[in-house]
């Protein structure tokens, strides 16, 4: 039991389980899934589908944060990729053609790859602080998106494009497969190769890594480029869901949700060690919380307060210091002497 509690994902998972439990108690139908026309329906299925854009963005954010950085531009990049893709589809004579849609998606993602690489250039080559470097595109990105759409909200009709966010495969939403694929690919690239550990090394100690011969510039650059690509795909999913490129609303504040998901998953904002599994759990926690808010009928005007309150509780539960504080109080009450101590540092 002790080993389970010590596991670094114990508290993130505990928070998610607690949230699901609260939902199930207040609404027994929460966990139930119904089958209709070979498709699954239910709150859980909705959460799996709706969490996809955040999942993609948060994966990229995890890598960027691991390098001691942060990417504020992801929301704006979502707007850009949606705008590029939809503009191409709208302009094409045959929006229903799968080839056209694939080209449009490719163009949208390539654009955000380029913009992500720009972020990486500012941070890795010019040495600009990540928060400032990515703030540029956070502000300018939506302008670029508006430029692409000519200032309008582009809407389209295209069955293949719509399928991205709204279609199903084997009864489960296609968007869910996209997020599973993204998790698998990122995990494979980071953990099957040495990229993950080199990224962590750069995030923990950039100078020591440089002297050890790690090509840190390329690693940091790549992290922002990857974040751009993932944000691009997230933008495609978002615009596919509403079949419109809304430069102002697409991915609004998603960078904050993504950062929150990363932190809830146990990755430190100070950089270094990261946990992709933790981020996945963090994303599901946030999405579950959002659906809880909707279900409980919290008025939209006050929902941020509700969300903030829950987030504070979750973060406090994960804080070692707070837990130790409670443990001390508990110990004082039960008066059992303890032999353990925090910070097991074998000091001289």
């Amino acid at each position, binding site marked *: 039991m002790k080993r389970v509690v010590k596991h670094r994902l114990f508290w993130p998972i505990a928070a998610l389980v607690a949230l699901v439990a609260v939902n199930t108690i207040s609404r027994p139908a929460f966990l139930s899934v119904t089958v209709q026309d070979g498709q699954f329906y239910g709150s859980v299925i909705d959460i799996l589908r709706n969490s996809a854009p955040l999942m993609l963005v948060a994966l990229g954010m995890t890598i960027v944060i691991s390098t001691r950085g942060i990417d504020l531009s992801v929301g704006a990049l979502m707007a850009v990729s949606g705008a590029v893709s939809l503009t191409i589809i709208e302009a094409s004579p045959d929006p229903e053609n799968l080839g056209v849609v694939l080209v449009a998606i490719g163009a949208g993602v390539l654009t955000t790859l380029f913009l992500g690489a720009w972020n990486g250039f500012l941070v890795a080559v010019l040495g600009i602080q990540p928060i400032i470097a990515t703030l540029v595109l956070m502000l300018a990105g939506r302008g670029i998106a508006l430029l692409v759409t000519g200032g309008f909200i582009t809407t389209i009709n295209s069955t293949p494009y719509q399928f991205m966010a709204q279609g199903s495969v084997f009864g489960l939403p296609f968007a869910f497969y996209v997020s599973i694929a993204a998790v698998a690919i990122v995990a494979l690239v980071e953990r099957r190769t040495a990229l993950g550990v080199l990224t962590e090394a750069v995030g*923990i100690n950039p100078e020591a*890594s440089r002297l050890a011969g790690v090509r840190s510039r390329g690693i940091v650059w790549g992290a922002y480029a990857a974040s751009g690509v993932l944000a691009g795909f997230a933008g495609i999913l978002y615009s596919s869901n509403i079949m419109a490129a809304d430069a102002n609303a697409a991915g609004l504040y998603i960078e904050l949700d993504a950062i929150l998901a990363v932190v809830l998953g146990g990755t430190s904002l100070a950089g270094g060690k990261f946990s992709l599994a933790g981020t996945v759990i963090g994303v599901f926690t946030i999405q579950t919380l959002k659906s809880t808010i909707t279900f409980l009928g919290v008025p939209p005007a006050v929902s941020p307060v509700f969300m903030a309150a829950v987030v504070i509780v979750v973060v406090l539960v994960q804080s070692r210091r707070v837990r130790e504080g409670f443990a001390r109080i508990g110990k004082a009450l039960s008066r059992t002497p303890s032999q353990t101590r925090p910070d*097991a540092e074998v000091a*001289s």
Partner: protein
Amino acid sequence: MPTDTEVQPVVEMRGITIQFPGVLALDAVDFTLRAGEVHTLMGENGAGKSTLIKALTGVYPIDGGTITVAGESRIFRGTADAQTAGISTVYQEINLCTNLSVGENVMLGHEVRTLGRIDWRATHREAERYLETLGVRIDTHSLLGSHSIAVQQLVAISRAMVTDCTVLVLDEPTSSLDRGEVDQLFRVIRDLRDRGVAILFVTHFLDQVYEVSDRITVLRNGKLVGEYAASELSRGDLIAHMIGRALDDLAALSDTSRRQIDRESVPVLRAIGVGRKGVIEPVDLDVFEGEVVGIAGLLGSGRTELVRLVYGADRADSGRFEVDGGPARITTPRNAIDHRIAFSSENRREEGIIGDLTVAENIVLGIQARRGWLRKISHSEQSAIVSEYMTALDVRPADPNRAVRNLSGGNQQKVLLARWLATAPELIILDEPTRGIDVGAKADIQRKVADLSAQGLAVIFISSELEEVLRLAQRVVVMRDRRIIGELTSADIEVDDVIDFIAHQGQESMA
């Protein structure tokens, strides 16, 4: 000068026990500190010195024993409690605000107030007064960060004076100071002692212990070995107490410095007129196969700057390199690594270890970086390399999956050495590899360097401890004022000769 135990103890620690998970860090240790004495705490890394200090300064709660300060029994729940009791600490890493002025740092929290508002002029005057009692005359309006570590340390001490401390704890204060700075610090320490302050001093430098201490307490493996008057404890006995055995093995190493080197062959590395404006004047340097070249010189003489250029950590703006006889471009660490040059920085924590990664990950990092991220070292290959080097260098604890930051300094240094040896270099540059580490680890590292060079590895060895340089190196390059002033053959010289050489090539630098 205090003579004996009749002086009333300021601090009495009795039976101090501290338990970490799985480790008994302190086992019923007694420690007594008297007013007007400099009391040095000695022991290898992991002996419990830091833990004892942290118990006294309220960082760690104690699991057993009593702490009495000025006759009053105390329980410290935090550092603030210890400060209230008059115990001030100056740490190895200065913990002041480098972005505030000197005066603000000295007086922080004790600013002079008139009618509730801070009177900055009076505050700075006060700060000046405190600094002057320590013999420091600097502009109190200047930023603390603009001063050397030595001055910052003195500022930290005067800050302790402001808080009216009766006990001053100095944890490794001299590890990054040069000789002149150490002398100034010691003058201040002796002055404070004469004013009745009880001083607890921790250092790794054996010379310094005898220079300044009245009394020495030795710890080993969390237990008290004994308390001795400094004048009655010989150096050999002290070392024997610290490591629990006599240290004869180091003497055997002295043969290394007499080994004949074939200097007719092509040098592994040759630097011709390599320099960097404002950092180091153009110098020539060559290193041959199997040779250990020592670099001697005071701190700030350009030793580190020189090897950083050779490694490409900083870019040389003049001169050229030859590796194995062919021209080589070395402008980044990667270039140097590709030419099979390795470099272990003097700054172990900032520029060496990757603290949160495991010992194993730290060891294979050098190889992995060379291979690139796409070709990950397989698990079996990693464990083979890691266990080979952990055994060869006797890294303790022998757990490859422990985060390297939890290791003692000496073992961290061994991990760094392992990282570089695993890349099979032809030349390894070791900048202060034995600084701040215990005697046992020091001997291990010296022995390893001697063995490797005998097998043909070229080594550039920098150390502030001249004995060590003379013991290992066949040739000593002497630096001063950011240039090379000469070369000595170490077989026929003593430490004093080197010091003499540094001094007599011009008096201005010794001022």
